[in-house]
């Protein structure tokens, strides 16, 4: 099949999946307990890796940028630089990438093995709509949890940055925090929380679609898993650019 046709078919599949899952929310059964379980699995389960990623990203940002800023004698703005880059950009994107790696792959593998062992067929045969029972709870959980994880990563990034500034460059923590507070505005935070909502949708819908369209036995499960992580990660980065542009326009970011 021609790659463009294939792409359009995939896009159609993903859109239908998302559409069916969300329209399913307006009628019973909704499987609310499954939502909670997925939120725990995705949210609480991903917290350690997301916090670690955030912490060291903030730390390395200070480590690398401090010296450059010092060359221009504006090292007092380190906090501002780290805060804006973390809150606007690195927090949402890195969290989405980590979650895509950990959760996206797990979703694709789980749904994929359910497909090849005919468990999805069995579910449908016993009167359960897999969109309601499997897809919707995962999408909801990702969409709700990713912004929260992002905020946690941002905070730990700032803590990491502050520690490096204090211990390695002897910059006072208060000075760092003040500079950071100057740097970020409410609209940056809004932007930084809106982005992961979309990233959650991208990661979840790609992973669920890839998992449910698995063919070719256990080898197929492996392929779906890899595809899901690669495709979701690429789309997170592509989406990030367009979302950033849209948010700049909508929230007037960048205009002082």
């Amino acid at each position, binding site marked *: 099949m021609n790659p463009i046709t294939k792409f359009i078919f995939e896009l159609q599949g993903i859109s239908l999946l998302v559409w069916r899952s969300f329209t399913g929310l307006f009628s019973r*059964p909704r499987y609310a307990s499954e939502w909670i379980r997925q939120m725990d699995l995705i949210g609480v389960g991903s917290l350690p890796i997301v916090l670690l990623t955030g912490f060291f990203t903030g730390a390395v940002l200070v480590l690398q940028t401090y010296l450059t800023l010092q060359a221009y004698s504006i090292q007092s703005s380190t906090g501002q630089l780290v805060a804006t880059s973390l809150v606007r950009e690195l927090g949402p994107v890195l969290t989405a990438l980590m979650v895509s790696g950990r959760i996206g792959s797990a979703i694709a593998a789980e749904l994929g093995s359910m497909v090849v*062992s*005919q*468990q999805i*067929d*069995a*579910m*449908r*045969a*016993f*009167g*359960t*709509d897999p969109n309601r029972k499997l897809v919707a709870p995962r999408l909801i959980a990702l969409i709700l949890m990713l912004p929260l994880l992002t905020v946690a990563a941002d905070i730990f990034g700032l803590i990491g940055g502050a520690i490096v500034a204090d211990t390695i460059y002897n910059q006072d923590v208060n000075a760092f925090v003040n500079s950071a507070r100057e740097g970020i505005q409410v609209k940056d935070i809004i932007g930084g929380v809106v982005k992961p909502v979309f990233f959650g949708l991208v990661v979840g819908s790609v992973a669920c679609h890839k998992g449910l369209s698995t063919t070719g036995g256990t080898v197929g499960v492996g392929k779906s898993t890899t595809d899901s992580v690669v495709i979701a990660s690429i789309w997170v980065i592509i989406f990030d650019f367009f979302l950033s542009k849209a948010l700049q326009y909508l929230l007037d970011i960048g205009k002082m």
Partner: protein
Amino acid sequence: MAKLEDTLNISDEEGFVTEFDAAMDDPYRVKPVIEFRDVRLAFDDKVILDGVSFTVRRGETKCILGRSGGGKSTTIRLILGLLKPDSGQILIDGEDITGFSEEEMMPVRQKIGMVFQEGALFDSLSVYENVAYRLREQNVEEEEIEHEVRRMLRFVDLEDAIDKTPNELSGGMRRRVGIARALVGDPEIVLYDEPTAGLDPPTARTICELAIKLRDLQDVSSIFVTHEMNNIGYLSSEYAIVTETGEVVLEKEGEKLCLINTEVIMLRDGKIAFSGTDEKLRSSSDPYIQNFVYGK
């Protein structure tokens, strides 16, 4: 439909026979439970079913034979509405389900029990929860669920495994749990998708015995997809009766009784190559059928 315990109370064999005679003229029995009318299905260029028509009457078992990848499992998936045919009609209980949406299929699926190839048990649930799955979805009271689950697990002789997870079970046990799960809610139709594939002969025999009991004692209509000839041998030559002591025994057909409730369909290249009794199948002179039946 009568539940197993009620059926087990039939001890008067003569009464059973007169009941059977009367039943033969009953329109309820004459109307096909499953009907395929000129069903066609192709995936891209590959033709899977090419104008397949057949019927399954109430209480009848249709064995579908054919090579791997020959459209046997597809037939079953079509009945459940998991796939839609390109053309033709599929009727369940006289109702044309061909154009049914997923929502409209739900009440139809409740009449059908399905035994999947490898059992297809939900890995994340225990045996109890697997068997209870359908009832839970229907919001049945927990007390009733437990009663039903135990009754079904007793039927497949696996009540001890109730708290185990599917990973702890052997292949044969998984199939039996699969059967128990399919039978919950007393479906009128049971579909078996190669239920004995990969099992040792005694376990395979047990599975066939369960199918025979369901057919003869519970009046279940079924489709039994297989490529193993000995399964066909069991299903079309043995029948289950209840003795005076209330025991269920299997007997071989012979002078006393000739089974007419089991027929064989053979699929070849998407078409029905043979349809009839197993005796006719074995005596067919068609080289393809000979090759399939005798393996040479």
